[in-house]
């Protein structure tokens, strides 16, 4: 079975002990630090995508609820598949006034392009949520389930099916490669687009046969009846039971595994800081994001985008990130997506 995303539950006990040890060792990690100037919120992606939407939403929540004394300024630094933003944060050693939101390009960009950075160059703060991926087709397409879709790919000509996705050698293409293992020997043609919104529109216009858009990128088209959701790439169904379309809720979408397409993948939506920051500075942001996640606005945002609300911080988060990087490395190695020398 293909398991692309391992929960870190097994190490939790060990981590707990470590945390206690850390607390005992440094009892003075009190919340004394606060930003003294505006905080730059780096978005390592272009405007309009999932990371951008979330970051700007967070900026809005902070401003609306007065959660920070200093303003938070979100800026897009999406050059080089996000390398621009990550390098910028990496460079500002010890700068506690810069934070960055991540997507999977935290792992995929250095591996695919060879640009010298990794998550180890940054300071992990919190995991905000895991973003889901859903297999979408046009609602006029004949396939009613993931199984029918896979059968159609298998029965069709090689490379006849077109999968639209965001970027190249990133999450969408990684999932496509995983689907191809199930549809083997038939391959799927992956077509990279600049952003998730464009991908969803291309599917509505039938320029591609399927997409693996994040829920938030495709929800409006789903609601309007232009798209059909075949399955969700998670280990279990979504928890959101409120009807989104006339007769379907997020929880009504079967998992891909139960429909015979055994692929799982979720994307980290997390916060990192520059390297070399002090523990009390990290603690400040951990608390800040706890407050953000406690707002009603955030809860609604999570439901609208059908996010998996797993959150963590500290060493637990670090271990999760480490495991997730390894996972991406293995997947990309298998797909021959690695840059020379990686």
């Amino acid at each position, binding site marked *: 079975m293909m398991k692309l995303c391992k929960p870190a539950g097994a190490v939790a006990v060990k981590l707990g002990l470590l945390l206690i040890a850390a607390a005992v060792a440094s009892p003075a990690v009190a919340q004394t630090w606060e930003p003294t100037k505006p905080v730059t919120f780096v978005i390592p992606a272009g405007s*309009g995508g999932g990371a951008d939407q979330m970051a700007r939403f967070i900026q809005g929540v902070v401003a*609306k609820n007065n959660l920070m004394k200093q303003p938070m300024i979100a800026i897009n630094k999406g050059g080089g598949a996000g390398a621009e933003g990550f390098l910028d944060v990496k460079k500002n050693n010890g700068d506690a006034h810069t934070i960055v939101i991540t997507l999977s390009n935290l792992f995929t960009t250095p591996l*695919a*392009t*060879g640009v010298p950075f990794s998550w180890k160059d940054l300071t992990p703060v919190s995991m905000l949520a895991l973003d889901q991926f859903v297999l979408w087709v046009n609602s006029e397409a004949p396939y009613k389930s993931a199984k029918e879709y896979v059968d159609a790919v298998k029965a069709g000509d090689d490379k006849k099916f077109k999968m639209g996705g965001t970027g190249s050698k990133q999450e969408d*293409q990684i999932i496509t490669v995983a689907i191809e293992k199930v549809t083997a020997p038939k391959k799927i043609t992956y*077509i990279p687009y600049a952003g998730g*919104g464009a991908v969803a529109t291309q599917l509505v216009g039938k320029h591609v046969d399927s997409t693996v858009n994040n829920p938030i990128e495709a929800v*409006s088209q789903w*609601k309007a009846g232009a798209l059909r959701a075949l399955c969700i790439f998670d280990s279990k169904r979504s928890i959101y039971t409120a009807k989104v379309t006339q007769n379907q809720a997020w929880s009504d979408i079967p998992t891909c595994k139960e429909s015979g397409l055994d692929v799982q993948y979720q994307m980290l939506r997390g916060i990192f800081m520059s390297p070399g920051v002090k523990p009390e500075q990290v603690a400040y942001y951990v608390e800040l994001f706890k407050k953000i996640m406690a707002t009603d606005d955030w809860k609604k945002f999570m439901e609208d985008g059908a996010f998996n609300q797993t959150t963590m911080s500290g060493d637990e988060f670090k271990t999760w990130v480490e495991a997730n990087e390894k996972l991406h490395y293995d997947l990309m190695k298998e797909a021959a997506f690695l840059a020379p020398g990686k």
Partner: protein
Amino acid sequence: MEEINSLLQGFAVALTPYNLVLMLVGIVLGVIIGVLPGLGGANGVAILLPLTFSMSPTSAIIMLSCIYWGALFGGAITSILFNIPGEPWSVATTFDGHPMAQKGRADEALTAAFTSSFVGALVAVLLITFLAPLVARFALKFGPAEFFAVYFLTFASFIGMGKGSPFKVIASMCLGFALGAVGLDKVTGTLRMTFGHEELLNGFDFLIAVIGLFGIGEILSSMESGLKFSGSHATIRFDAVLRTWKTLLTYWATSIRSCIIGCWMGITPGGATPASFMSYGLAKKFSKNGHNFGKGEIEGVIAPETAAHAAGTSALLPMLTLGIPGSPTAAVLLGGLMIWGLQPGPLLFVEQKEFVWGLIASMYLGNVVGLIVVLTCVPLFSAILRVPFSIIAPVILVICAIGAFTVHNSMFDVWLMLGFGVMGYVFQKLDYPLPPLVLAIVLGDKAEEGFRQALLGSQGSLTIFWSNPLVASIMGLGAILLFWPLLSWIKERKAVPAMQAHGVVGGAGNSQDQIGRLAQLRQRNAELKQKLAAAMIEHDGLQATTIDQLEADNRTLEARLERYEMEIANSRKDRGN
């Protein structure tokens, strides 16, 4: 008509004193944002977005969209006055707007730009009001092949733009493609031509190139030609607006064509920048005064401004109806919608009637308010040119540097901008045209992306570019425009015997050479005449400012005129005998 009813309700929502004040504030902020190069509408809206969270969604979107209109208006100001495009879509406005300012016609150029913007926007809003659902479906027909066809059409409409040698145009364009290709290759996800330099990850940003090539290049040229702006002598005339409006009416054909191009490019969504270039290129081809384009032709201002504003406005249509942003600014607005709890997409028109029609009504009102604001400021803007060069040039340099820095918040870009400035100056000296270079930097990578995506989908078969009537007709149109120079060359060849009969071209020999020679001589002739006038002014010291000096100068001129007239009369008599 249901639309009219809804629209009237929309006006009722938008026309509260509070919302009108927000409109005014938005327009003024937008104009400032548009004037500052590099800041741009998208950044401006993003910075001001948090301010609007305490407002109702309708008020917020009214203010933010007014910032957007203001930025569209404001981009033209610096393009015309200083040759610095504040926004990507005002690059084409510099081609003729700035020469007009140099000739002392800045007020006319500004009025033409603002009025055309308004007309373009108005047509686009009418389109949104009455044809939204129909048009939205059309946008869905655009796949990679169609996008490539649109870019191809833009390039094709621009071929033959340069005044000089076609080889210089091609060289300039190829250099632009090369610069545009630096950075991440979006189709394979790998870096190319960065040679291990992290600074080059982003490639060469179009805005930095433009600020350098045009803005800094212009300052360098001005320094060479005597540390002053040509056009600084212009008197400020308050009737400029009415005077210019009269002439604008005669260019209705250009306006209509530009509106169509703009709306179409906004919806597809090609965007305002390609729309402005395409519209300029086509206006040059179809205008009676096409050969004068680039020297200060008012039509060369009308065409790009109308199209840019029509495209900028109609770009909001795919955003509202499909949830896809037609421009970066629209993308940020889209983010705003989500924060206010509105879900952009096909159902927004159904679920949020008040919001949508309030927004559409504010498009009408915002543009009217905007036009009034900027037009009343025309004399003020043109007066900026009267500030001494030694004061304004450093200010412009600083603004350019800030603009370049803002794009990625990186100092490297400021050096890059200066480098581009030197390049712009050298290009000018060597008579290489800049527009093809800029166009290739802006659209080169997008065209490449569309081309490669289309080929991926078709398994490498080129037939995809004429596989359906839509893409085939766009490609066909592009091909016609591409070979237009050839067609007009043939036409001219046919015209030669007629010209010979009239004694315009005499003697035997290769007729094509004759035409080239004729054009060269004509150009030289015009240059000499201009220089003669300048030399005379210099020679006789006719640069008076006070009453006494002016009286003396006028006496000198009268004496000269009298002498010339006498000589002309004498020579007529001689010939008569």
